[in-house]
């Protein structure tokens, strides 16, 4: 790393609770979200969505719609024949379905009209002939039904992806165990439910340049998708991500409505807006995959793991989305909390006729974390160990490489466990509270950005451009997208710290593919670490130029020049100096216009095997949570009174914003643990059970629990000023901590989220009848798993590469 300059010593900005740079705009209604854009002559678009879950499209007749008063244009799938998708390996979507629909809500036509009402009415007179196909509604059905195939690609039948990896000799590991335990668990799907419904505005101007404003977390990938599907040169397309009214991963895919509205703008030559209804947002989905999981772990008497075998089956819904990555993620991060010397992972994702699943906060990792942490709780009980102590005894060492070749940096989980154990008075409560009251613990880890970009290349994942002008103005430009997490502010704080100016003096321009260098987007908790490092580099380069010019002016040695309080001065004689604006004038006089760039590329991963692309990260954050619950044995109702959570943030860039992310993560984890579910009606028609905010249960103020937060600061050398992520990680320990607390309260294992009252009650009744005190599935569907890719672990002398297939076959 070359960017340690300015990262040592006392900080003026970093670690301080400054307001966000856009805080006043957000509190006064001035922030312009996508639907707040109104342009002259703007048309309004609506999508006609499929009312059937799986069918061939035999014919579409739009002639009546075209004659409907107010309608200006109607397009169908044939107008946008090129497929797209977020991952290069899953280019399986069309903006408007061409010959087949795959779920209720799949769009088949788009109308642009003078107003929204006219567009709505015109949808009713579009005639579509569907020829129904057998529907596939669940993981079990998908595995049992090879035909019809929802897609003509994948790993056979309706299996989208099958993965099998083995790190080290797990059979040997299980042979060395004193105890082997197996568990089956299920994590229901849930959706992001951002308060802002997706919206986009497109304008194709007279110079044949297209601009799309959209509520997207990933303008760069939308830019790519538009370039591919519209047949326009990338240089003729500009994507501007408007501030997102909540994302949580739900605005990370390029969407059909974005492409359709862009096409309608090209067809009509007028601006066109589309705003989805709340019901449509449920159809966009890309939310948490429902995952069936089986985990088998061998342990020594002290809880040391000798081997682990994890299986996951993901219900992917109708399209690929991020699903291949999601599948790998359900098996990747089991190894970064507790030492797992030998590890086997088998995973698969199926297609079903439901809205597509994708990345939701924690992307593919809350499900296995729930399974793993509930499983660890049961192991601790079988061994007669305190679950908090058992976990702490076997932590992955800091600065080590795991069996699956993830390079762990700073590792503050031990401190996190200590904080929540002390804060919650764990030792006085665990297995000691009255029946109906319980306490549970769980831990977790999350990535700070993915080591590899979605499109593999050697270019940076984040770029920052800095422009200093002779009035002392500083403009920072970056492709990153503020989805409420405060990424615009992070850029300003970091640049201000390095240049010794006030963050509110800085103009931040982000998420505009015409004006800003590429940043891949707001996903995988990558933004603070990656844009932060890029911003440091750009700011240090600018500072170097200013330093040279100021040192000449002051006649002081270069190493004496410091920047603080909007001044540049000689540290040995601080009264001698110039204002920041004068420093810029001196530098501009000497070097010409002052502009610098910075970029960030993650370090290379030590894993070289097929499948090693998912899991590596520049750094891992850690969290520990204790939940205290009250369970009513008469009704099965679970009330979570309080959650103590400690998060290893590395270094807070702004602690107030970190606190907000921790609390928001706890909230979302609590909702998933207790009530949120993306559920469907009917086995054959697969209608979404409740596409409304009233019926899709989420926590109001009355259900939200008290949260006691501890920030553990263990700076990571790869983070900007040592910072790690916080947007996603703290969600992960919450559902298992609650499940473990429910067991402590009433002695019943609920091996499934959400932990609904009827499940708790079923478990309590089963136990009262002398049966197992448990609610959950007993087994995974039986499938033939592929021969695993075998990778010797670092401890076995492995070099990160898989064994040749010949050797694998030889073994079998």
């Amino acid at each position: 790393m070359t960017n340690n300059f300015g990262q040592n010593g006392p900080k003026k900005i970093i670690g301080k609770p400054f307001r966000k740079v856009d805080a006043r705009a957000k509190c006064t209604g001035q922030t312009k979200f996508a639907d707040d854009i109104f342009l002259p002559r703007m048309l309004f678009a609506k999508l006609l969505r499929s009312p059937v879950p799986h069918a061939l499209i035999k014919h579409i007749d739009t002639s009546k719609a075209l004659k409907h008063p107010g309608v200006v244009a109607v397009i169908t799938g044939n107008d946008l024949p090129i497929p797209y998708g977020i991952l290069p390996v899953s280019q399986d979507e069309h903006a408007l379905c061409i010959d087949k629909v795959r779920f209720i809500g799949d769009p088949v036509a788009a109308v642009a009209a003078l107003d929204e009402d006219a567009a709505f009415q015109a949808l009713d007179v579009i005639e579509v002939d569907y020829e129904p196909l057998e529907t596939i509604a669940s993981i079990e059905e998908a595995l049992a039904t090879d035909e019809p195939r929802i897609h003509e690609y994948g790993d056979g039948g309706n299996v989208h992806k099958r993965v099998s990896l083995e790190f080290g000799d797990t059979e040997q590991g299980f042979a060395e165990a004193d105890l082997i335990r197996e568990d089956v668990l299920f994590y229901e799907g849930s959706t992001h439910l951002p308060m802002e419904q997706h919206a986009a505005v497109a304008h194709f101007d007279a110079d044949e340049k297209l601009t799309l404003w959209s509520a997207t977390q990933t303008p760069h990938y939308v830019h790519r998708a538009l370039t591919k599907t519209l047949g326009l040169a990338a240089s003729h397309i500009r994507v501007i991500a408007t501030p997102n009214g909540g994302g949580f991963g739900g605005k990370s895919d390029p969407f059909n409505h974005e492409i359709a509205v862009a096409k309608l703008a090209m067809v009509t030559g007028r601006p066109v807006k589309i705003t989805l209804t709340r019901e449509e947002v449920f159809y966009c989905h890309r939310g948490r995959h429902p995952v069936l999981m089986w985990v088998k772990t061998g342990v020594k008497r002290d809880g040391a793991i000798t081997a682990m075998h994890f299986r996951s089956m993901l219900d992917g819904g109708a399209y690929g989305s991020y699903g291949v990555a999601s599948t790998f993620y359900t098996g990747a991060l089991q190894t970064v909390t507790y030492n797992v010397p030998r590890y086997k992972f088998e995973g698969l994702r199926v297609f079903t006729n439901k809205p597509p699943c994708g990345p939701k906060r924690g992307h593919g990792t809350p499900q296995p974390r729930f399974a793993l942490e509930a499983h660890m709780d049961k192991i601790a009980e079988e061994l007669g160990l305190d679950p908090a102590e058992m976990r702490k005894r076997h932590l992955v060492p800091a600065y080590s490489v795991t069996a699956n070749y993830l390079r762990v940096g700073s590792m503050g989980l031990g401190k996190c466990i200590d904080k929540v154990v002390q804060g919650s008075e764990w030792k006085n409560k665990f297995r000691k509270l009255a029946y109906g009251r319980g306490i549970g613990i769980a831990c977790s880890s999350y990535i700070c950005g993915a080591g590899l970009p979605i499109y593999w290349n050697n270019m940076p994942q984040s770029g920052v451009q800095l422009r200093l002008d002779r009035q002392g103005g500083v403009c920072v430009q970056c492709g990153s997208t503020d989805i409420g997490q405060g990424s615009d502010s992070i850029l300003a704080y970091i640049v201000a710290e390095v240049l010794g100016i006030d963050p509110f003096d800085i103009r931040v321009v982000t998420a505009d593919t015409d004006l800003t260098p590429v940043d891949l987007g707001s996903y995988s908790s990558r933004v603070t670490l990656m844009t932060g490092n890029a911003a440091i580099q750009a700011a240090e380069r600018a500072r170097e130029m200013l330093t040279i010019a100021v040192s000449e002016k002051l006649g002081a040695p270069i190493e004496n020049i410091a920047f603080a309080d909007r001044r540049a001065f000689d540290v040995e004689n601080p009264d001698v100096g110039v204002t920041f604006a004068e420093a810029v004038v001196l530098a501009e006089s000497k070097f010409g216009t002052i502009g610098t760039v910075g970029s960030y590329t993650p370090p290379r991963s030590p894993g070289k095997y097929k499948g090693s692309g998912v899991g590596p990260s520049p750094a891992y954050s850690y969290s520990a949570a204790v939940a205290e619950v009250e369970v009513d044995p008469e009704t099965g109702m679970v009330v979570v009174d309080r959650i103590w959570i400690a998060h290893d943030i590395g270094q807070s860039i702004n602690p107030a914003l970190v606190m907000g992310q921790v609390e928001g993560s706890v909230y979302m984890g609590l909702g998933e643990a207790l009530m949120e579910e993306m559920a469907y009606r009917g086995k054959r028609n697969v209608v979404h059970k409740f596409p409304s905010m009233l019926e899709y249960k989420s926590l109001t103020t009355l259900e939200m629990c008290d949260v006691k937060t501890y920030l553990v600061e263990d700076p990571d050398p790869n983070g900007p000023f040592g910072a790690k992520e916080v947007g996603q990680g703290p969600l992960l320990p919450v559902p298992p901590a609650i499940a473990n607390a429910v067991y402590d309260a009433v002695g019943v294992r609920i091996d499934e989220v959400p932990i609904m009252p009827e499940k708790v009650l079923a478990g309590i009744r089963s136990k009262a009848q002398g049966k197992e005190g448990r609610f959950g599935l007993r087994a995974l569907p039986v499938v033939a798993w592929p021969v695993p890719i075998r990778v010797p672990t670092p401890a076995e002398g492995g070099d990160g590469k898989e064994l040749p297939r010949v050797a694998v076959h030889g073994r079998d």
Partner: protein
Amino acid sequence: MPNKPEKSIIRLTLNGEAAEVAFAPHKTLLEVLREDLGLTGTKHGCELGECGTCTVLVDGRPILSCLALGLDMEGREVVTIEGMAANGILHPLQETFADLGAAQCGYCSPGFLLTAKEMLEKNPSPTREEIKEALAGNLCRCTGYIKIYEAVELAAARMRGEEVEPATESIYGLA
């Protein structure tokens, strides 16, 4: 095309000023505010009365503008988020929401701010439970509500004339 104009005209007091607006009579207050008056600070989350995002004050009371007809606003006093700050001076709630990060994405914030404003006018010293009760009709997906409670409590104290700063625990966590 019909012979007579399709739009209706009403007069109201909007953010303390006399206003007149013409709109299609079936429109909701939400639509009239955003589309006919250009006041896009009022947001929508469901347009079905489920989320509280579109809350505005009518005659001093919080109402869901997605469920109110524009025509019903004749002669009434409507306050939107645009009217919460006066002459560039933020309302104490706006200040504390900004200070504590109670507005993350900011989309639900106008509804929360106006609901909280009305609550503090009725009850200057609310308990945490009373704040939860008053805000129970507004959904937020970002904050877990905690920074919102803390911002309301801080603003309430300041509006009572107390000189208080945010609690260390709410900004830095527990030691």
